[in-house]
């Protein structure tokens, strides 16, 4: 019984943490990402790739985190069947902010992602690179 309570309790903490991160991520998205990727995350076809229902994003979450932190994925990418050859610039986000904005993107519009991206995870990825 105690174990069940512990599980429930951790679930609540986890979802609260994620909610707060998504909230902070929304402000960052509006400040730094929305101009290109648009408020509904649909981007502009052929110019700025969509984030909503993006097959590329969900297949390449690690690469996307590194791209947000360091700027642009090099080379052409195909997102939902459309080719994108632009280059995203480094927006100067700190690792905790990268985590927040990723949590927002992965859990907004039609997107859903079970896990939570943390500052530690972002740092780990960047240092590995």
């Amino acid at each position, binding site marked *: 019984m105690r174990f069940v309570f512990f599980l429930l309790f951790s679930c609540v903490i986890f979802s609260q943490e994620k909610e707060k991160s998504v909230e902070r991520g929304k402000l960052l998205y509006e*400040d*730094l990402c929305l*101009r290109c990727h648009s*408020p509904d995350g649909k981007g502009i076809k052929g110019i700025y790739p969509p984030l909503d229902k993006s097959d590329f994003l969900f297949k390449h979450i690690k690469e996307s985190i590194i791209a947000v932190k360091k*700027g642009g994925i090099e080379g052409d990418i195909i997102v939902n069947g459309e080719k994108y050859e632009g*280059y995203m*610039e*480094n*927006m*100067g986000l700190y690792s905790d902010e990268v985590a927040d904005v990723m949590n927002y993107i992965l859990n907004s519009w039609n997107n859903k992602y079970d896990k939570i991206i943390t500052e530690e995870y972002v740092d780990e990825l960047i240092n590995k690179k």
Partner: protein
Amino acid sequence: MAQSGSVHAWGAWGRRFKSCHSDYFIKFIYMKNIQILIFLILSINISCAQLGETYIRDDETINIPETINYEIKNIYSDVEIPWSIEFLNNETIIYAEKRGEIFIIKDGKSIKVENVPEIYLRGQGGLLDLELHPNFANNNLIYISYALGSREDGGGNTAVSRAKLIQNKLTDLELLYKGEGNSTRGQHFGTRLQFDNDGKLFFAIGDRGNRDELPQNLSLDGGKIYRINDDGTIPDDNPFVNDENTIKAIYSYGHRNPQGIFLHPKTGKIWTNEHGPKGGDEINIISKGKNYGWPKITYGINYSGTTITDEKEHPEMEQPLYYWIPSIAPSGFAYVSSNKYKKWKGSLLTGSLKFKYLERLVLNKNNKVVYREKIADSIGRVRDVKESPDGFIYFTVENKGIFKIVPKE
């Protein structure tokens, strides 16, 4: 891409059409006479067409050049965001990367400049413009604008410094101006640097994403064009030096985000272009103490499509010399003063970040834009454009390189 322009114009027209039609339709409900209906349909179409004209203008189309008697030559390609270029002499270019590095380019080879000041990389902010002192040949002074600050300082704001450039090293770095009121917002740092014929330095700080508080308030930095002496002191004849609670370096206000500037060689006036909201990019001639209206008056609308203000004119505010519909996202601004290119003398050049070309504008004697054309169509995000001391046009393109326009014999 041209389609998005017409969509925007028709969108605005459509809104006007809808709003002015609805009243008539309400009235129509009470009328059954078919003749009145016909009369109404005719009259509303006339009145709406008149309203529509403020949105749909003659000079909206941009042209493809009929003859191209020049070549676009890539002279250096190892770039990311080459925010600005300057000429140390006819053969030597110095350029700034937004991420915080400066390079000297000669014969296609680059040398990194050392001791570049620390910058605050955030959104549109980073290392921005470079400008040589008018007497650079003797004093080696170079002026640098950039975003300065840190997370601990609550974000950053635009700064202007000067340093001596000796070989490839910066020495004696001196901060001349730093906008107060740091912010972590990524928008609208400006800026370009330009000396005028009196040796005064002009630069802009954009509205920093805070249009409601900054551009119309003379006691706060942001949304202004500034004028300082070459050593950073404030000229005695600046417009607000004698007023209380004003920032003395301000020269004009009510700006959104100027990222293009040149000194007109004939009039000695400072010309700027600035990023407006959707459909509100502008060209302005900068006059002392004047209010350029942002955000009280604008020809643009929010990027979301909502209205900022219905006002486009105000008796105490300046009208732009030109405004772009659709917005091109202008960056860099140059006046063609040489005879190197057939029929180009007197034209203006600006990069379009959005539509990825270099734009040439032709003005008539009354400073009205009468012709626009695309140079280097689809080349990429054009960041800066400059005329070299020997009269050739150079421009920079993000992730593509530095280009020279070479006239064909």
